[in-house]
């Protein structure tokens, strides 16, 4: 693909998100593979025709998946891209996690990483190209086999058909390819969108049969010969170190095999997990809390509130909001506070590892296996090639399984050191909730004015909270002049750093500042939609405040502010109609709206709530419109929207992690409440029709739901909530 730079990085991708809009379909993208790496000896059972495609003699087609499947539907999308060009029989399709090799790195990230809602965008051309090249190779082989012109040949779901009626399966051509040393062409034509019969059509999840029969293999389901289990006693104050421990009681439990200290705490190894966990509870451990026993989220919030009044690092300064506010007769001001949030994936963190003298093998669900391999190799003093990571399916992640420190993997590797068998470490739900990796607590101070017509004239926002990138050093390109671009993502009108988009609103005077107070002990972590999980609430709720101040309808105000941004403007017009925005609502009911751009894709939601006198409320309806370019799999998009809405609503209704004296107060689903079946609103999904290159949808829907609900509650009751979650401030989501 000539448009792809030779060193594709997220910078080049995000700077030019339209690069995938190839005018020409002649594709010369060089996949770094060689047929030499595949078994070439005649009679081999299978053939790698490409880095991503393996064909077996029995006509099974295996796609090597270079992105992680954790509910995002990426295995299905990648398969669709290959299938569109290759023309396969879905019944004979298999999938396999691709190994940790550079040829499988994300072309956007330049590493083996599934994150940022960019997998579909990054894979769209390479996977189609892989399918098309394999098809060309098969046609060439069939031509040789039958000594015929290509024009006589066509494909039919895993078969090549000759116009005279002869047929040969793809697998039946392996020998011809091997005998003639055939190579796929360097360039191929891809189908035009108008010829698609797979892409753009609803396709059900390819791994669904495994998931309804209990056969799906998650990390926690790994069983290896001789494997033992480990449970870790972790410190009550996160970040503490072990000074000493008494394991007499633990060792007395039948089935307990060994007890030892690792970085994370003290691990008990046993013949089954239950015994290991009993052993971990029986330990008496002396901890050094390294001074972290004084941490409290209440004091963080107080400190951040004070900081938000002071000058921060300047992220954006359009016009002169500050000067204007100094002389304005009245400036509206509000402070929004969002707590730490846990990911609470349904499958708790876990990892299985076996450490040999000269190598290490790992079985784990991870978004970030390139990084994980590097971390483990360094820890063990091994070459990276000697660390093998077998990626499993994941029971959710929401960002948690992309850990720069590979924390849930190093636990297992350390526990397995010195053992002759594989060790599986499983985190209890309590360890998971208290595990110290959270969406950071944020305080946003906002000030604004409206003009004589009632529209926003000025905006001054100061965002205060831990920088994820500063903490994880994940990627320096995300730091601009000391500002973590994720901390202000969704606050800025103009593109910033590698993010090529702004809010899509136009306010004449617009100033945004950022404070990244360093904090020890609590690790800020990506959480589905990252910065938007707090900036979205602050921005969209304060915008609602200004609408109220100026006497404007919140959706009309957003339409006014997006006059220069046709994409968002059209999307909002569609939302207005789909949500019946102008229909009157009964007393006690309210409507709210929010519109966001995350990782290039614009998305907006309108919600309807009903609030009872006692403050209990229901979310009756969520109408969501998204523009993610060409909609690769409408069914998958719908699922992601449902998921984003649910997780965002869950967070705004209940989500909080509190630290008191360094100890996380929440522990399991009774106090870290999950949204229940009977609380799920009816979600209506509308996808803007588009032939633009596909962009992401995995995290986007998480961003507008929280502010839309808060705005709807205000509309229904006149009560403005600025501290979250809602259940602490008078609004309880009805069960």
């Amino acid at each position, binding site marked *: 693909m000539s448009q792809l730079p030779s060193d594709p990085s997220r910078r080049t991708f995000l700077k030019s998100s339209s690069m995938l809009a190839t005018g020409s379909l002649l594709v010369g993208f060089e996949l770094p593979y060689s047929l030499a790496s595949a078994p070439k000896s005649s009679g081999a059972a299978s053939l790698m025709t490409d880095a991503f495609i393996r064909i077996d003699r029995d006509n099974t087609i295996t796609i090597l998946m270079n992105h992680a499947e*954790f*509910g*995002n*539907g990426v295995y299905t999308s990648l398969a669709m891209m290959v299938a569109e060009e290759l023309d396969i029989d879905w019944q004979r399709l298999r999938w396999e996690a691709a190994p940790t090799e550079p040829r499988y790195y994300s072309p956007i990230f330049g590493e083996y990483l599934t994150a940022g809602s960019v997998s579909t965008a990054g894979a769209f051309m390479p996977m189609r190209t892989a399918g098309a090249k394999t098809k060309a190779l098969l046609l060439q082989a069939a031509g040789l086999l039958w000594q015929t012109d290509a024009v006589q040949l066509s494909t039919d779901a895993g078969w090549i058909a000759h116009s005279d009626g002869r047929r040969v399966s793809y697998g039946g051509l392996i020998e011809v390819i091997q005998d003639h040393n055939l190579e796929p062409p360097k360039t191929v034509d891809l189908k035009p969108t108008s010829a698609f019969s797979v892409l753009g059509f609803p396709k*059900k*999840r390819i*791994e*669904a*049969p*495994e*998931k*309804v*029969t*209990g*056969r*799906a*293999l*998650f990390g*926690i*389901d790994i*069983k290896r010969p001789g494997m033992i*289990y480990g449970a870790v006693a972790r410190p009550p104050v996160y970040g503490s170190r072990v000074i000493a421990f008494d394991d007499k009681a633990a060792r007395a439990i*039948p*089935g307990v095999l060994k007890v030892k200290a690792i970085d994370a705490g003290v691990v008990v190894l046993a013949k*089954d*997990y*239950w*015994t290991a966990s009993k052993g971990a509870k029986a330990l008496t451990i002396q901890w050094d809390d390294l001074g972290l026993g004084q941490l409290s989220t209440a004091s963080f919030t107080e400190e951040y509130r004070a900081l938000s009044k002071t000058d921060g690092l300047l992220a954006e300064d359009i016009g002169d909001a500050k000067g204007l506010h100094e002389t304005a007769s009245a400036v509206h001001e509000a402070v929004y506070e969002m707590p730490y949030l846990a990911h*609470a*994936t*349904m*499958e*708790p963190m876990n990892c299985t590892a076996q450490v040999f003298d000269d190598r290490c093998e790992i079985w784990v669900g991870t978004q970030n296996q390139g990084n994980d391999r590097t971390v483990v190799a360094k820890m063990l003093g091994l070459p990276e090639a000697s660390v093998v990571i077998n990626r499993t*399916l994941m*029971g*959710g992640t*929401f960002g948690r399984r992309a850990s720069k420190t590979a924390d849930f993997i190093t636990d297992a590797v350390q526990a397995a050191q010195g053992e002759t068998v594989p060790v599986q470490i*499983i985190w*209890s*739900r309590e360890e998971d909730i208290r595990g110290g990796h959270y969406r950071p607590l944020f305080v946003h101070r906002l000030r604004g004015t409206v003009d004589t017509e009632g529209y926003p004239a000025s905006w001054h926002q100061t965002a205060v909270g831990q920088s994820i990138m500063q903490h994880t050093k994940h990627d320096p390109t995300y730091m601009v002049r000391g500002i973590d671009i994720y901390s202000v993502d969704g606050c800025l009108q103009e593109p910033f750093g590698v993010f090529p988009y702004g809010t899509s609103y136009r306010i004449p005077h617009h100033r945004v500042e950022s404070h990244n107070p360093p904090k020890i002990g609590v690790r800020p972590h990506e959480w589905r939609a990252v910065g938007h999980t707090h900036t979205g609430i602050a921005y969209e709720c304060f915008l609602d405040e200004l609408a109220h101040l100026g006497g404007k309808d919140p959706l009309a105000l957003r339409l006014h502010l997006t006059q220069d941004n046709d994409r968002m403007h059209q999307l909002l017009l569609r939302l207005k109609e789909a949500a019946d925005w102008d229909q009157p609502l009964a007393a006690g009911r309210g409507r709210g709206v929010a519109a966001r751009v995350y990782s290039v894709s614009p998305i907006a939601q309108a919600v309807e709530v009903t609030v009872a006198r006692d403050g209990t409320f229901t979310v009756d309806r969520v109408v969501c419109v998204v523009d993610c370019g060409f909609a690769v799999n409408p*069914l998958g998009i719908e*699922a992601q929207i*449902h*998921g*984003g*809405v*649910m*997780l965002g609503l*869950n967070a705004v209704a209940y989500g909080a992690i509190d630290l008191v004296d360094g100890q996380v107060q929440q522990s*399991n*689903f*009774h106090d870290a409440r*999950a949204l*229940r*079946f*009977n609380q*799920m609103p*009816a*979600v209506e999904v509308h996808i803007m029709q588009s032939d633009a290159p596909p962009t992401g949808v995995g995290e986007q829907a998480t961003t507008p739901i929280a502010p839309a609900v808060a705005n709807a509650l205000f509309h229904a009751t006149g009560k403005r909530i600025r501290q979250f979650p809602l259940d602490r401030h008078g609004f309880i989501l009805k*069960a």
Partner: protein
Amino acid sequence: MVTIIVNDEARTVSASPDTPLLWVLRDHLHLTGTKYGCGISLCGACTVHLNGEAVRSCTLPLAAVADQRVETIEHLAVGGDYNAVQSAWLDEDVAQCGYCQSGQIMAATALLNNNPSPSDAEIDAAMAGHICRCGTYQKIRAAIHRAAKVTEGGGSQV
């Protein structure tokens, strides 16, 4: 040694009698379709059928289920045919990450066995104890209604 009837087969296990059925199934019998989610009966991921009723296996000690009949997700598709709930799950494309779905399907199957045509309120009552973090609730509801229609219409038994 305790014997339980798992998926129509007598299995004798040497686990400690306080071991929850969940870990007996997973670690001793390697039936990993039943999942650990919370360990305190709050999320439903560990749901199995005990003598035909949906129960939480994470807080059910082995000693309490001696000689009783346990059915797990692995046993629903008897003879390779999905049961009506599994089929409906596939038709509605319910699963996302899929981790909670074994428990959801076991609960829905038990619900339809007891009540072939549940109302939305009855579905709420049966499913509210089952947490999904991916947002599949809306499709679960649709799938249960679909399965109910199939079984009512004389289709395959749940």
